[in-house]
């Protein structure tokens, strides 16, 4: 036996990869060349605009004389973009939250650390409770009205609340829809289908304008809370269908083995069925979260200034007219970083939870 034989050079390394993936047939070669030409057309000017010709230092628009982007615009408005109109003296409260969030996420991302379960529980249950007091006040902290919340901070609040609350509600709706009790099943189905049949914009409009009409005189629900409830149920309805797909993929044998072992319905669901079916649909769940994250930008239409909204808003400031490109590129980059991060995390989670079946 010849143990030391290596594969031919043609099939390995960079050349092998190029051959196999980019130049395997004549039409693949043509597509590759066309692709390269477009990259050549787009990338160099873009890089010049963003980096090489851009202005990074200065304090006002007069400092931006080059042909590239004027990042001074972002720099000068960064406080608005990150915190909205949150009072300057109280920014530390938001900063604590940013800090806790960042530390917890980094902790979760480092492989092979202990107590990740506790950190996860902290992030999903304790941290949101801390945030409620930190952000809105109470327990000796000054009250900060939600109309002052804005920017990236508001985007993260809406997306965070949506993500943390919509998954459990979505799971309950999915279980409800598959319930053997006809009333539970019917109500869950109606609820899911109504929310799925309505665009989020409509939901937000109704939450903002129509909801107060149904409330008794004098009862005034915070506008942000109304929007949050709308976003939460909207996302929950979509997640319910995603989770239901995972439930349907479970073989009957898993239910039977759980029942034969004497597990009650809820224990069977919590210990056997949901862990497996949620695992199957992780990519779709994260996909829903990403969609939710991007959809938070719609709250602009009910007068809440989220990250994108506030960037648009500062672009209308007479001092900074004409810099909307910089604003949009910046917004797109930040959105992309968050969404790409979630997508990568989903892939890692899938790999980690794989037990070979």
């Amino acid at each position, binding site marked *: 036996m010849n143990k030391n034989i290596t594969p031919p050079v043609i099939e390995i390394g960079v050349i092998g990869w190029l051959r196999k993936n980019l130049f395997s047939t004549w039409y693949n070669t043509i597509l590759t060349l066309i692709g390269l030409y477009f990259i050549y057309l787009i990338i160099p000017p873009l890089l010049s605009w963003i980096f090489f010709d851009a202005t990074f230092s200065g304090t006002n628009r007069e400092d931006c004389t080059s042909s590239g982007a004027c990042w001074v615009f972002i720099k000068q408005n960064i406080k608005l973009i990150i915190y909205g109109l949150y009072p300057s003296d109280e920014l530390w409260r938001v900063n604590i939250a940013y800090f806790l969030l960042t530390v917890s996420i980094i902790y979760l991302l480092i492989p092979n650390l202990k107590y990740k379960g506790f950190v996860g529980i902290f992030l999903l249950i304790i941290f949101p409770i801390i945030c409620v007091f930190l952000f809105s006040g109470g327990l000796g902290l000054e009250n900060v009205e939600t109309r002052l919340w804005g920017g990236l901070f508001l985007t993260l609040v809406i997306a965070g609340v949506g993500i943390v609350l919509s998954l459990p509600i979505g799971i309950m709706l999915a279980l409800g829809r598959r319930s053997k009790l006809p009333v539970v099943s019917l109500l869950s189905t109606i609820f899911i289908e109504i929310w799925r049949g309505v665009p989020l914009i409509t939901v937000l409009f109704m939450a903002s304008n129509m909801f107060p009409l149904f409330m008794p005189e004098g009862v005034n629900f915070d506008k942000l809370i109304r929007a949050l409830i709308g976003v939460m149920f909207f996302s929950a309805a979509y997640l319910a269908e995603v989770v239901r797909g995972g439930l349907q993929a479970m073989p009957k*044998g*898993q239910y*039977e*083995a759980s029942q*034969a*072992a004497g597990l*009650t319905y809820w224990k069977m669901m919590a*210990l056997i069925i949901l862990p497996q079916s949620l695992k199957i649909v992780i990519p779709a769940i994260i996909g829903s979260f990403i969609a939710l994250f991007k959809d938070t930008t719609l709250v602009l239409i009910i007068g809440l200034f989220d990250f994108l909204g506030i960037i648009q808003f500062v672009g209308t400031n007479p001092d900074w007219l004409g810099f909307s490109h910089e604003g949009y590129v910046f917004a797109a980059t930040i959105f992309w970083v968050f969404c790409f991060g979630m997508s990568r995390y989903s892939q890692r989670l899938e790999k980690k939870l794989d*037990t070979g*079946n």
Partner: protein
Amino acid sequence: MTSETMIEMSSVHKWFGELHVLNDINLKVAKGEKIVICGPSGSGKSTLIRCINRLEEHQRGEIVVEGTELTNDNRSVEKIRGEVGMVFQQFNLFPHLSILDNCSLAPIWVRKLPKIEAREKAMKYLKRVQIDDQAHKYPAQLSGGQQQRAAIARALCMEPRIMLFDEPTSALDPEMIKEVLDVMVGLAEGGMTMLVVTHEMGFAKEVADKIIFMDEGQIVESKNPTDFFSNPESERTKTFLSQIL
């Protein structure tokens, strides 16, 4: 026999829609008795033993397991499931849990045993089926025979008084059948009350106190192994035996 009755089925009927799957089943199982059930595919064997732990619901007649009648009352169902272990054709191990966790899950969550104790118990039974060295693997990493032995250990961890087997060797490659049957023989020798749906007639001869032949939802023949093989009464039994022996 004076010994205690573990299972008593009287005039049990069940339909799937129009299909009469169980037709007047009467069966009494004494403590420590081993019963082998055979019969053509679709004759209702699985349905019969699945009625005993309420994986299927019977529509007429009465099933009493260890003095508790099976009714729609969840408590009676839970009580009986605690006493009855089941082994499936397709193993049905929980693929997201290690073999050890498969075995200790029900003791922890149903019997409320402390985790350490449940794990010790799991190791004890995994040792008995000789796969204690695989305890930390996942089901997908085991061979079919090992998986089925793990499934038996999982059922034993609840220390059931009755074990139901639904064609436990039918999904196995031939070379693995023996390792599973050996475990079952060992269990039978230990005095377990067993109902086994199988076509392994060697096993039936060796351990069964009674062999039941089912056809079209009815118990056609019910005899000790010697009589069952040497002088079956019904024509249908004879035909069946000629096909599988």
